[in-house]
């Protein structure tokens, strides 16, 4: 029979709060960096120059077919052997590169979902490929991509727990540390689970609100 020991947990509240802040921090940095990477790679996949298209496709396929943990290990233990990489930046870079591949696919799908006639009409009016993409196609694609993008960001928040494996002291790692002191796995991990849940729920609700807002004419 499991005996609950909630009384020991409150003393670790400051530690948990700091870890939550670090989880948020790495998530935000990775979302921003991963989005930049993903948008660039996604645009490269639909533009007419073959070598660039190939490069972007290679990036996407490579990163989508290996585990995130392996990417983190390669950066932290691999590159870390030559370069001074902090746990934070190893995790942030790994997460960004990994998530960027998924964002690229969302961006590509968003652009390809826009009727080809839009690009043709814009080009026919004398706009360059870049102008047509910027003024006509991208704004329409962005609207359609926002909901799946938010979904991807929720995944990223959860994936950030893997940063614990390269000793970045985010929620997951701090949870493990606390548990090894008080041996109350349910109390500790349920609490941490609730924090992840709250962060992701807020993101999901934002996405739902966005969808409703964009559905209006």
């Amino acid at each position, binding site marked *: 029979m499991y005996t609950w020991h909630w009384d020991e947990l409150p003393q670790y509240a400051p530690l948990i709060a700091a870890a939550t802040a670090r989880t948020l921090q790495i998530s935000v940095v990775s979302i921003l960096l991963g989005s930049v990477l993903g948008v660039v790679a996604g645009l490269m996949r639909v533009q007419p120059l073959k070598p660039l298209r190939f490069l972007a496709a290679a990036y996407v396929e490579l990163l989508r077919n290996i585990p995130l943990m392996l990417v983190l290990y390669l950066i932290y233990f691999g590159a870390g052997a030559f370069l001074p990489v902090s746990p934070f930046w190893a995790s942030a870079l790994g997460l960004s590169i990994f998530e960027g591949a998924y964002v690229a696919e969302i961006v590509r799908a968003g652009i390809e979902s826009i009727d080809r006639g*839009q690009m043709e009409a814009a080009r026919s009016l*004398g706009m360059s490929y870049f102008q047509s993409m910027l003024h006509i196609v991208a704004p329409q694609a962005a609207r359609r991509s926002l909901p799946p993008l938010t979904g991807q960001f929720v995944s990223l928040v959860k994936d950030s727990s893997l940063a614990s494996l390269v000793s970045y002291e985010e929620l997951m790692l701090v949870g493990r540390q606390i548990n090894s002191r008080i041996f109350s796995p349910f109390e500790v991990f349920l609490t941490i689970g609730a924090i992840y849940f709250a962060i992701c729920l807020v993101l999901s609700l934002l996405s739902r609100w966005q969808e409703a807002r964009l559905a209006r004419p």
Partner: protein
Amino acid sequence: MNTEPMVEMRGVSRRFPGGHYGVRGVTLEVQRGETLVIMGPSGSGKSTLLRCVNGLETLDEGEIIIDGMHVNHLTTDWNKVREEVGMVFQGFHLFPNRTALDNLVLPQVVVRKRPVSEAKATALRLLDRVGLGGKESRYPAQLSGGEKQRVAIARSLAMSPKVMLFDEPTSALDPEMILEVLDVMRSLAREGMTMLVVTHEIGFAREVAQRAVFLDAGVLVEAGLARDLIDRPETSRCRAFMQRILRRPEGGIAAWT
């Protein structure tokens, strides 16, 4: 006055992946201020030929000269050419996230670098001209098919093109909306716009076009005065085609003339 043809095609061919020809060896001239109608069965290469003129399709052989510009070279600046060549599509292709006014303003500002106030004035004048005064703040989804196509025509005109290409501009429209679009096109032709029109609207072709060409399987089979080509086709293929479309239950929009 410049008597050079506005558009000249010399032996224009376009092959599709797989090797079959979309258009094969087409030679034809369009004079300044002339309306030329391009007719032919579906899949005959009418649209492909039209799309070659503004570079939406690339030529495999031959050349096209627009107002003295040779446009089939690798060095062709298509953006420059397209500024001078307007295109109206069967499916309108208005920008759905922008109002009718913005559909006209944006390309003027981006491409022609006009100040917004000037672009707006031009846009309002042209919307008024195609009979859409007062509807400038509507989004495309709030317009009927005929209204959308008239916005699309105005959008092309806003760029002050020298040539207008129409790719089956009324084929996606309900019958009662075809007339309003054809009326706009007729007034354009009367004002001296050079127009290449792919259409099955016999009435429009007879009344508005000076000349017509008939394409079949990518080859230019017959060319002549529009009335002659429609009423007295010389080749059997053209004759068979004209008989088929004149027999259409709705009679094309033959009722229109």
